[in-house]
């Protein structure tokens, strides 16, 4: 069966999935399979699945607004400082245009698009399990300060505060946002929504120049415990990872290949934007924790609370981070 990769560790820990290590670990295809997927498909050095589908986050930028603001549309920002500088210039254009987008009420949107800014800045977010420390590294506070400054400087729309994920996919295509963290799914959506908009894709940067990261999401193929058809499932996994399927099924439909060595193909070459977003697979990661929903994805969880306090209040950031850390540790230690 296919399952959201982010919850795989929980099911692996509960021994609800078939251990496939002896059947598949020697496959050469797995050497180039998405690192994020393989991380969460592994539990205590045992392998439980292979990638089924990949989503990655990247920085989408509006080339038309870049040109209007006097920025080079072929030179996207490579650091958060540059994002700020560019955003200031784009916001100065006025007319309801803002330089950046920060979803205020959506935990998932934020781990997808703000999480990589923290990773790219050398910091860690989630607690993997009992005893593990969350929110480690100076990058956490630096990125939170950066987001607070972006909000205070007026570089994001006020309405971003209400975004709970329902209209997230429509924001970039509106043409009113200069730069935005979003996913590969937005290439087609933005083209449908705003066919005349010229846009580019870059990697989500960190504090330091040329640092970058991405959130690798998507699904795994796994086998539930008790299945009578493990062999058939394994054959299907082999089929999915084959060269032919990677190119003629995934790439042809402009879906990301789940093997990084298959990114160079004729279909992606005809679609440079897809090729650009595929680069995110090489710098991407997937959070690994047994309590992802409660720590990160929950609307009542500490991750969203921390971000909302950083974006919209003047609370001391050390306190904000400490409070979130304590809550995430409590959850992870259950």
């Amino acid at each position, binding site marked *: 069966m296919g399952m959201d990769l982010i919850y795989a560790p*929980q099911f692996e820990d509960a021994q609800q999935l078939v251990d496939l290590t002896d059947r598949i670990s020697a496959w050469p295809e797995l050497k180039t399979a998405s690192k994020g997927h393989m991380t969460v498909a592994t539990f205590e050095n045992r392998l439980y699945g292979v990638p089924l589908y990949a989503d990655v986050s990247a920085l989408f930028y509006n080339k038309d607004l870049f040109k209007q603001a006097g920025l080079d549309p072929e030179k996207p920002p490579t650091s958060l400082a540059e994002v700020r500088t560019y955003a200031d210039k784009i916001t100065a254009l006025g007319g309801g245009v803002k330089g950046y987008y920060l979803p205020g*009420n959506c935990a998932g949107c934020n781990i997808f698009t703000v999480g990589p800014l923290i990773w790219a800045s050398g910091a860690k977010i989630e607690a993997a399990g009992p005893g593990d420390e969350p929110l480690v590294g100076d990058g956490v506070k630096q990125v939170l300060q950066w987001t607070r400054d972006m909000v205070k400087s007026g570089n994001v729309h*006020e309405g971003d505060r*209400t975004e*709970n994920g329902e209209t997230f996919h429509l924001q970039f295509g*509106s043409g009113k946002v200069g730069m935005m963290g979003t996913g590969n799914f937005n290439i087609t959506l933005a083209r449908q929504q705003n066919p005349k908009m010229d846009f580019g894709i870059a990697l989500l940067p960190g504090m330091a120049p040329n640092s970058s990261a991405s959130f690798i999401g998507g699904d795994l193929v796994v086998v539930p415990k008790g299945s009578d058809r493990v062999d058939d499932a394994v054959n299907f996994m082999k089929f999915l990872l084959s060269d032919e399927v990677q190119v003629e099924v995934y790439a042809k439909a402009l879906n990301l290949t789940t093997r990084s060595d298959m990114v160079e193909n004729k279909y992606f070459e005809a679609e440079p934007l897809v090729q650009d977003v595929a680069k995110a697979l090489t710098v991407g990661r997937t959070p690994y924790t047994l309590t992802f929903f409660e720590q990160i*994805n*929950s609307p*009542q969880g500490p991750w969203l609370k921390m971000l909302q306090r950083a974006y919209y209040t003047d609370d001391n950031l050390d306190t904000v981070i400490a409070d979130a850390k304590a809550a995430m540790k409590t959850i992870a230690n259950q």
Partner: protein
Amino acid sequence: MYWTRRSRLTGIAYLTPALLFVLAFTAYPLARMVWMSFHKWSLITPPSWVGLDNYRRAFADDQFWVSFGFTLKYTAIITPILIVGGYLLALLVSRGSPLRRLTRTTVFIPVVIGLGVSSLLWYWLFSTDFGLINRALMDLGVISKPVLWLGVDADVSMLAIIASVTWKVIGFGMILFLGAIQAIPTEIHEASLVDGASWWQRVTRVVLPLTLRTVLVVTLVSVIGSLLAFDQFYIMTAGQPQNETATSVFYVYLNSFPYLRLGYGAALSMILALTILAFTVVQLLLTRRSHA
């Protein structure tokens, strides 16, 4: 004696389908929930007995009581709106005329839409960037910039949700009140007219007392529905800002399913169910007392 036993068996035979239905869809799930509340169970691991631990945890869980307090506040505000509004609408459409019949139908149509669909519709209407409400208010000059209706200010969010729920359910109360009003014999209306009663006097001294039972039933249903509110808050605010619009059932849902704590969720559900039962009993006792 033969006929008594036979008629007894016949009665049981007629009752059996309903009894089976109640056993399967009410008694068994309730018993199962009670059992779950005494266990630690994630659904993907075997359940383990923990006695009253879940209940002890629930009573010490600040977030649950904050959510419960918010749910009570929401219920206290929306219930009078639905009852008074529904009753006034029923009075308005109680006489037969084409316009009144059209009004009756128009007000009732949203009742048949699912609450989830209605909430999604209103989420989009209230959307800051794409919604029609802000657009209309700005075009009419009522506001100069978009209002952040959902997920920023708890009170504004609650009022927006109350508006959406009122639109959806007020027709239900209207129809029930309408039935009760139209059941009053015409002679009573005529007698009050002959006595020189004004419209207001007829409503307060004749119609309202004769429809009081229906008012109390509708109030009870409305209170229970509001105490169990979930869909509209899940979809429209997801409990934001900062969990200030998270209702009790929202919290029960999060614990039971995404957090995989079925046992704890069951304990929270039991506390909620017993509270609602207590409210219901008090309300029924007050109703009986008022009739006595």
